[in-house]
C-alpha cells in the first residue's frame, strides 16, 4: 500500500479540528466588562474548525503544494497574461506605511498614498493615450461596467446630445463573456458583430450601427490573437454614426508602450492591472480595472477622484475629490483596490517607457515562436508565417487532426497537467481551440519544453491515445468529475 493512501493526505480543516485547539490568542481584557446585550447568542461558539498553530500552517502549506502557479509552473492561460510577479511589488504592498492606512483618514494623513495614486492615474492616461483615468474599478469587468455607465451618462446629458435611446452595444462574436454581461448590468442591449477570418467584418459592422448604437466594445489585439489593422476604420464607422469606441484592455500586453489606444480612435478603455501590469492573480483576484477616457467623458467618471494642486510653497498637495456633479457616483466603497494599484505603480516605475515596449515585444516574440514551432502538429487557423500572418501576444490552435483521432481538447489539457504545465484556455473564443499565451517572462528553455511536451502529446495521441484520454496520471487527483459536481451541487462540508 502506498504511503499516501494511508489516511487522507488532505483532510479538510473541519476534519483536522480538535475541540479546544486554537492557533491564536489575545491579551486578557483590561477594561471592566459590560453585560452582554439581551440578543447575544447563548447557543455556544460557532461550528468553525479548531486547530493548533502547527496544524494551521501545515494545512495551508499542504494546500499550497497542491496548486499550480506562475511561481511553480508554466501557465500559458490565454487571455489571462500569467506573467512573473516581481517580489518587490509584494514587499511594497506589505509596508506598514501603506497597509495601516484607514481609508477615511483626512487627506493630509494620506499624502504619500495619494501622490502615488495621482502619479499612477497620470501614467495610465499616458499609456492609454487618453485624457483622464479613474482608479476606482475593482477588476476588468468592473471597469467595463463603469465605463459603459459613463458613456450612457454622457449620452443622456445635453453634452452628449440628449440621446438616452442609445442603449445598444456592439461586440464582436469573439468578445470576452464579461462584455455582454457588463452591458446587461447597465441596462444596455448587446448585438454581436460577426467576424471574418478572425477580424471584425466591416460590412457587418456598417450594417449594425444606427442611432441606437451607444458604443462598440472591442478587444485589440483580439481574442483570436490578432491585431485588427482596420481599427481606424472601425472607429470611423462608429464615430460617423455618433457612437463611441470602447477598448477592452485585456490584451494590452501586446501593444503596451508600442501603440496607444487613444491614437487609434478609442474613446474609453479599461486596463487589467493583473494582466498587463503584473499584479498577481491570487487564485482569482484581487485585480484592478482602471478606466481611461477622453476629456468629454471625464466629468462622468466615478467619485472620488484623486487630484493634485500646487501648494504655495511650490510642492504638490493631493486630495480626494468627491464633488463632481455629473459623476455616475460611487462604484465601490472607499478608494479602489489600493494594494493592487500600488503594485501597479511599482511595476511601471521598474519598467519605464522602454521597459514597457520591451514587455510587448517579447510577449509577441514568444507567442509567435511557440506558434511557429507547434503549427505543423497543432493547426493555427489565424497564424501562418508563410503568408506573413503573425499573432500578437497569444494564439489559437484548433488541433483538428489530433481531435479526429478520437481524443478531446480536455484530454490534451489534462495530459499537460502531468508535465507540470497549466493547460491553456479552452474552447474560447472558438470551439475546440486552445488559446496559448506564453507571456514575455518565460525563458526560451521554458518555451522549448512546452513545445516538446505538446509534440510528445501529439505523438501519444497517435501511438498511445489511452495515455492521453485517461490523463492526468501524475496530478494531485485523477480526472475530476465536473458533471457530477454540477448535477448534485455540494457547496459546503457536512450537514
Amino acid at each position, binding site marked *: 500500500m502506498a504511503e499516501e493512501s494511508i489516511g487522507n493526505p488532505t483532510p*479538510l*480543516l473541519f476534519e483536522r479540528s480538535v475541540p479546544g485547539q486554537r492557533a491564536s490568542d489575545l491579551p486578557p481584557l*483590561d477594561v*471592566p466588562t459590560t453585560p452582554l446585550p439581551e*440578543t*447575544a447568542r447563548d447557543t455556544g*461558539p460557532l*461550528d468553525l*474548525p*479548531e486547530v493548533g498553530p502547527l496544524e*494551521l*500552517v501545515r494545512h*495551508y502549506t499542504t494546500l499550497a*503544494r*497542491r*496548486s*499550480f*502557479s506562475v511561481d*511553480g509552473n508554466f501557465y500559458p492561460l490565454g487571455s489571462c497574461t500569467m506573467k512573473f510577479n516581481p517580489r518587490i511589488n509584494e514587499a511594497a504592498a506589505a*509596508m*506598514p*506605511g501603506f*497597509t*495601516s*492606512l*484607514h*481609508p477615511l483618514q483626512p487627506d493630509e494623513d494620506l499624502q*504619500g*498614498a495619494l501622490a502615488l495614486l495621482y502619479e499612477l492615474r497620470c*501614467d495610465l492616461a499616458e499609456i492609454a493615450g487618453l485624457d483622464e483615468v479613474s482608479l476606482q474599478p*475593482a477588476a476588468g469587468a468592473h471597469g467595463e461596467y463603469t465605463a459603459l455607465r459613463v458613456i450612457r451618462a454622457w449620452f443622456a446629458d445635453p453634452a452628449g446630445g440628449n440621446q438616452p435611446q442609445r442603449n445598444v452595444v456592439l461586440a464582436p462574436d469573439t468578445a470576452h*463573456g464579461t462584455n455582454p*454581461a457588463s*452591458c446587461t*448590468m447597465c441596462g*444596455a442591449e448587446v448585438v454581436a458583430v460577426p467576424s471574418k477570418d478572425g477580424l471584425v467584418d466591416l460590412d457587418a459592422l456598417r450594417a449594425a450601427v444606427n442611432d441606437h448604437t451607444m458604443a462598440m466594445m472591442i478587444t485589440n489585439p483580439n481574442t483570436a490573437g490578432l*491585431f485588427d*489593422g482596420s481599427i481606424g476604420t472601425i472607429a470611423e464607422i462608429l464615430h460617423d454614426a455618433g457612437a463611441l469606441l470602447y477598448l477592452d484592455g485585456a490584451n494590452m500586453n501586446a501593444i503596451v508602450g*508600442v*501603440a496607444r489606444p487613444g491614437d487609434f480612435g478609442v474613446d474609453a478603455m479599461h486596463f487589467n492591472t493583473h494582466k498587463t501590469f503584473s499584479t*498577481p*492573480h491570487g487564485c*482569482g483576484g484581487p485585480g484592478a480595472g482602471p478606466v481611461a477616457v477622453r476629456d468629454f467623458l471625464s466629468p462622468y467618471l466615478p467619485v472620488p477622484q484623486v487630484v493634485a494642486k500646487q501648494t504655495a510653497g511650490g510642492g504638490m498637495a493631493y486630495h480626494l475629490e468627491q464633488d463632481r456633479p455629473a459623476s455616475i*457616483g*460611487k462604484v*465601490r*466603497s*472607499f478608494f*479602489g483596490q489600493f494594494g*493592487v494599484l500600488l503594485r501597479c505603480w511599482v511595476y511601471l*516605475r521598474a*519598467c519605464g517607457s522602454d521597459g514597457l515596449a520591451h514587455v510587448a515585444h517579447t510577449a509577441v*516574440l514568444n507567442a509567435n*515562436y511557440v506558434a511557429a*514551432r507547434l503549427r505543423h502538429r497543432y493547426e493555427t487557423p489565424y497564424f501562418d*508565417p508563410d503568408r506573413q500572418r*503573425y499573432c500578437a501576444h497569444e494564439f489559437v490552435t484548433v488541433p483538428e487532426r489530433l481531435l479526429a483521432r478520437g481524443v478531446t481538447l480536455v484530454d490534451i489539457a489534462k495530459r499537460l497537467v502531468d508535465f507540470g504545465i497549466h493547460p491553456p484556455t479552452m474552447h474560447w473564443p472558438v470551439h475546440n481551440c486552445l488559446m496559448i499565451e506564453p507571456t514575455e517572462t518565460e525563458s526560451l528553455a521554458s518555451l522549448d519544453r512546452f513545445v516538446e511536451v505538446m509534440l510528445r502529446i501529439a505523438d501519444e495521441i497517435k501511438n498511445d491515445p489511452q495515455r492521453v484520454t485517461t490523463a492526468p496520471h501524475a496530478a494531485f*487527483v485523477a480526472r475530476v468529475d465536473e458533471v457530477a459536481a454540477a448535477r448534485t451541487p455540494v*457547496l*459546503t462540508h457536512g450537514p
Partner: protein
Amino acid sequence: MLGTIGVADIDALYRSLPERYRLTGELNLPPAEAELDLRRALNARAAANRPAAEAEHGAFLGAGAYDHFIPAAVDALASQGAFVTAYTPYQAEASQGSLQAFFEFQTMICRLTGMEVANASLYDGATAVAEAVIMSLKATGRRRVIIAGTVHPHYRAVVRTYLADLAATFEEVEPGPNGTITDTDLQAALEAGKDGGNDVACVVVQSPNIFGRVESWSSLFAMTHAQTDALAVSVFNPIACGLLPLPGSCGADIAVAEGQPLGIPLQFGGPYLGLFATRRKLMRKMPGRLIGQTVDAEGQRAYCLTLQTREQHIRGAKATSNVCTNQGLLALRAAMYLAAVGPEGLRETAEQCYHRAHHAAAKIADLPGYFLSFDGPFFHEFLVNCPVPAAQLIDAGRAAGVMPGLDGSALGIGSADQLLIAVTEKRTAAQIDQLVNLLRAHH
C-alpha cells in the same frame, strides 16, 4: 527565435499594426528605476503617510474598515507564491489546493452566517450589497428596492449607481430616533407601494448599522416576509457574528458583508472582500464563483468550479453578474483568519470589542458636554455628540497621537459635531484613557 518564425526582426511581427499608430518616441513616463531606488521612493511615499493602525496612542476609526488583530500566520500563509501567483482554478486537477481552500471558505461563511450556500467572494461590501439587490430584482421580477437609511452610506451610494440604469426604484427608510429602523417606518415603506408591499424586490438592513447600533433583523425581516415575499437582505459584520444573532437565524434570504475584519489589513480601503451567502433555493441565481465537492475518476474526493452556467464566460448577457476576477486571495486570508482564531477566538474577539467599546462609551458619556447620540444596544462602534466640532477633535488628536474617530458630517451620516468612534479588541485601556483625555480637554 526570429529564424524559427521566419522574420528578420520583431517589427515584422507587428505587420498588422498600421505604421501610423505606432509610437515613434518614448512615453512620457518616469525613467526605469532599479529595485534599490524603488525602495527609496517607496520609503519616501510611505513616510509621507500617517497610518491609523500605527498611531502612537491608537486610532478609533471604523465605518466599515476596522483595525483588528491579524495573527502572523495569516500573512505568512497567504503570501505563499502558490496562492499569490495562481489564477482562478479553471483546471481542477492543477488547482486542488486552492479549490479545497475556497470550499472550506464557503463552508466557514455559511457557518458564520447561518446561511446555506456562500460564493467564493465578490469585490467588497458595497458591491456585495449591490449584487444582492440585483439578484433580488431578478429572483422576484420586481423593481422596488427598500434600503435602510442606516446602511453604510457608501453601500447605499453604490446600490444607487447600480440601479440607475435598471429601471428600478430605490427607497430609503429614514433612521428612527434611536439610530435604528423602526417597525412602523418599515411597515409604512412597504405599504407605500401597491399591493401592500407585494411590488418590493428586497428589504436591505445592516446590523450593526453605520451608527454601530444593533438592528432588529428578526422583527424587520418577519414583517417583510409576513407582508410580502420580498427577499430579506442582511448586511452583517463578520466579527459581530461571534456574539450577535446570525443572519440565517433572523430570517435573512441573502447575507452580505464587508469581509475586511477577517484578517485583511486596512490598506487604505482595498483590496477588501465581498462576502455573499444565501439560501439553497436561490443558489442558481447567485453571482460569482462557486466551488463544489465531487470525486475524481478513482472515486477520491476532489473539488472543482461548479454551476458555471450562471456565469459570464458561459452565459454572456444572461449571466447572473458580470463578475469574473473576484477577491480570491482575500477570501483565503479570511479563511486563514477564521481557522487561526477558531470559534472561541472569534467569540473572544467579538466580546472584547464589545466590552472595550462600552467601556469607552461609558467614560465618554460621563464627560461634560459629551453624550451618546443614541440609546440602545451597539456592538463596537457608537456615535457621540460633542461640544466642539469633530474636526477640531481630529486635529487636536493629531498632536496627541490619537485618532479619535470620524467626522459625522464628512461621512454623511450626521452633523459636524458628531464623532463616530470604533473600538476593536486592539484598543487598550490606556489608549481608551488617552482618547477620553483628549475629549475631556475640548469642551
